[in-house]
């Protein structure tokens, strides 16, 4: 966010804020312990607004539920912005001092009247107006989101629309305010921090900045490495399609099941000249590989760090001996480098981390000793006397503002790529359940009393209209493929909306249905919005 890719607040702030908007996030089930902080906030008097197509278990805790049509988030956010501007509740002083692009932004949102927004989002105009006014008037308010915002073809624009609301009202850079993407895995944040994104080196440093490039090259003994940005996941699949990318090294990911439009993904992976998979399991992706490198489990069988959604770097430690033949990721990578003619030595996890601290200013103060002592540290932490940073962007409240101003971006509503038509009239969205995780490789190994067989959830009204019974097996088809799946009625869904998870690919290959339309900036696929039809079998 404005140059630092991480949530701006601490979890604790959710306990002491006045309003939380949970936007495209079912945190009660997907981030249960963050939701504990939120519940403490609610007990302390905070109000909760849930923006979600489904009336989820998070929505049950909300004072207001905005049951938005899938993929209309920008229309909602822009209409809220327009309400705030027209009510004179924009923070003009903050906007003038700390932001850029206001004129263009204000002109853009002017078209998003409440009438337009009601039509595009399905949310009653009065509810949109009330939530907008409440957000603007709250002394402290936070917006938190998850994949409901980012698994869209216009993910980046969705995020920008939320950032706009915070900048418009000065609800960032202060305690109890902020913008927080809740990360889906224990080191999504850390992967980005460490440079596992195409254009960045560790600490979000720009690969294409000559001075940065030179600093790393010098530290690595004059090593040569590309000056240009690499591919993100979606671009890799495109490059495979064009025959440009012929060999792939996959570490700890199961794209044969997790990619949207699975049939295409498996086809492309199978067509590679050389596929190496490093994982703790022989996943469906590993089964396609030419070489499989068995790895130790990062969280229980090796040493290192991960970073959470409040930017807290925490230690993971070895509690178990890995199975015979499974090795630590660091050891595998160093051995591989040696075979390729580059000797990294045999560093411990701490030595690797210390190298990172030398090169990444935001991590410099985080020695293993301090991480142990303080129970993790929130970046940035530039030196060993620094306590870490509970919330970001306090600089925006300095006068004059510290560092670059934060831009407001004019972004337009752009509905999901997979259009609803007479042939495919039902909107399928996907998500997680409390007791399961992603493609189920890990969670399907424990016996959860909460688990039931995968099913296509639809509203009882749709069931009646289609003449299908609860439990009846149907054929669900999208423009890409079809699967047979039992129906389950779910009263949290509105008519026209269906829901499935990705947890049980061996029962139902949900990703046969999903669309791989992706956001060009972030590379995220539109898992949240497919158009399907349901036929009796």
């Amino acid at each position, binding site marked *: 966010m404005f140059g630092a890719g991480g949530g701006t607040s601490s979890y604790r702030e959710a306990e002491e804020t006045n309003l939380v908007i949970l936007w495209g996030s079912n945190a009660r089930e997907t981030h*249960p312990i963050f939701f504990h902080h939120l519940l403490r906030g609610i007990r302390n008097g905070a109000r909760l607004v849930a923006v979600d197509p489904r009336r989820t278990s998070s929505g049950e805790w909300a004072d207001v539920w905005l049951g938005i049509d899938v993929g209309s988030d920008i229309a909602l956010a822009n209409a809220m912005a327009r309400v705030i501007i027209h009510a004179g509740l924009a923070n003009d002083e903050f906007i003038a001092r700390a932001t850029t692009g206001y004129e263009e932004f204000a002109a853009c949102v002017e078209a998003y009247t409440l009438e337009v927004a009601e039509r595009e989002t399905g949310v009653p105009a009065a509810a949109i107006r009330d939530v907008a006014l409440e957000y603007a008037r709250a002394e402290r308010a936070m917006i938190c989101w998850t994949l409901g915002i980012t698994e869209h073809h216009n993910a980046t624009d969705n995020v920008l629309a939320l950032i706009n609301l915070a900048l418009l009202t000065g609800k960032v850079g202060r305690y109890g305010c902020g913008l927080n993407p809740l990360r889906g895995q224990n080191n999504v944040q850390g992967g980005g921090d460490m440079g596992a994104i195409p254009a960045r080196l560790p600490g979000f440093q720009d690969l294409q900045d000559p001075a940065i490039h030179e600093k790393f090259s010098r530290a690595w003994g004059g090593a040569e490495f590309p000056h240009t940005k690499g591919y993100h996941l979606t671009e890799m699949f495109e490059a495979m399609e064009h025959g440009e990318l012929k060999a792939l090294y996959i570490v700890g990911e199961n794209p044969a099941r997790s990619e949207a439009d699975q049939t295409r993904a498996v086809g492309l992976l199978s067509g590679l000249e050389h596929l190496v998979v490093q994982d703790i399991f022989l996943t469906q992706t590993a089964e396609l590989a030419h070489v499989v490198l068995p790895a130790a489990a990062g969280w229980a069988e090796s040493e290192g760090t991960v970073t*959470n959604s409040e930017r*807290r770097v925490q*230690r*993971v430690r070895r509690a178990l001996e890995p199975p015979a033949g499974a090795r630590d990721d660091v050891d595998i990578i160093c051995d591989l480098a040696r075979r390729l003619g580059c000797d990294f030595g045999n560093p411990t996890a701490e030595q690797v981390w210390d190298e990172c601290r030398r090169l990444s200013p935001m991590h410099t103060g985080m020695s293993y000793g301090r991480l142990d002592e303080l129970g993790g540290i929130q970046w940035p932490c530039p030196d060993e006397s620094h306590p870490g940073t509970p919330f970001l962007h306090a600089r925006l409240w300095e006068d004059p503002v510290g560092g670059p101003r934060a831009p407001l971006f004019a972004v337009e509503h752009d509905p999901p790529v997979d259009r609803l038509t007479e042939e495919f009239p039902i909107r399928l969205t996907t998500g997680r359940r409390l007791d399961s*995780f992603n493609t189920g490789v890990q969670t399907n190994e424990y016996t959860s009393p*909460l688990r039931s067989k995968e099913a296509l959830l639809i509203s009882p009204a749709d069931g009646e209209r289609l003449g299908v019974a609860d439990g009846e097996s149907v054929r669900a088809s999208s423009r890409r493929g079809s699967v047979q799946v039992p129906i389950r009625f779910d009263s949290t869904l509105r008519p026209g909306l269906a829901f499935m998870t990705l947890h049980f690919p061996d029962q139902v290959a949900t990703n046969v249905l999903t669309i791989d339309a992706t956001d060009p900036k972030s590379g995220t696929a539109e898992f949240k919005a497919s158009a399907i039809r349901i036929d009796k079998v």
Partner: protein
Amino acid sequence: MWWRVMAEAVFVGLPKRFVKVSIDGQELDVLEGLTILDACRQLDIDTPTLCQLETLTPVNVCRVCVVEVEGSRVLVPACSRKVEAGMKIRTDSERVRHSRRLVLELLASSVDMSLCSAQVGGWMSRYGATPQRFGDSVATVAQPVKIDNDLYVRDYSRCILCYKCVEACGVDAQNTFAIGVAGRGFDSHISTEFTVPLPESACVYCGNCIGVCPTGALMFKSEHDMRQAGTWDESRQTVTETVCPYCGVGCMLELHVQDNSIVKVTSPLNNSVTAGHLCVKGRFGFQFVQRRKQE
């Protein structure tokens, strides 16, 4: 208390004063709003507690922490009574010792307290508690262990009704409200709604009730099975802190490992992310890492 100190550090609330109190003749300054128990701990006076936990709201049910406060007709629970200026507190008078002894005796005569921490045994001997003095024919809560799912068991013959599980399942953490206290008097017991088995109840298997249970009434099924088989051996266990692999919240886990297998998962009470609480995945979703070893 760490969480209050954190709050002071970031959140500018109303300023707080120190108040002067005396405990067992010693004068001390205590931050306004703290409890008598906090004050006792400031002086390193070991005060027995059963239903009290730093992360839970006091429910005042066990009465084992009672102290004498000058001017008060009855003994007061140290865990919940806030300090007041000029309070004169006695923690070791005959009246206090007698009351604590009787509480421990009544509990230990009717409940199996053999899995309580060594600290509880220490209090029993300090106060000379002899539960046997009531004879062999006393009423007990002995009953078969409830095993109705693969994740955790409920052995209510070990339950002292401290309410901690109810609090953790309810407003103090999980807010799921799957269990409550049913019945009256000696028949009071922890129950799901209409006493349904857990899989039919509102339970979401976070196991936060296990995390706060002081008597072993609530227990991982893995621990229960090992105890039944006689293989549970804490002297051979290691406890390693790491971070949960699921989702991006970053909950700190304590992995209890015996013979290279995870046998139990807890989280530290003083962790700023979890306050000791986890979800079903973090608490029970570890099997995948060990199933690899068997293959």
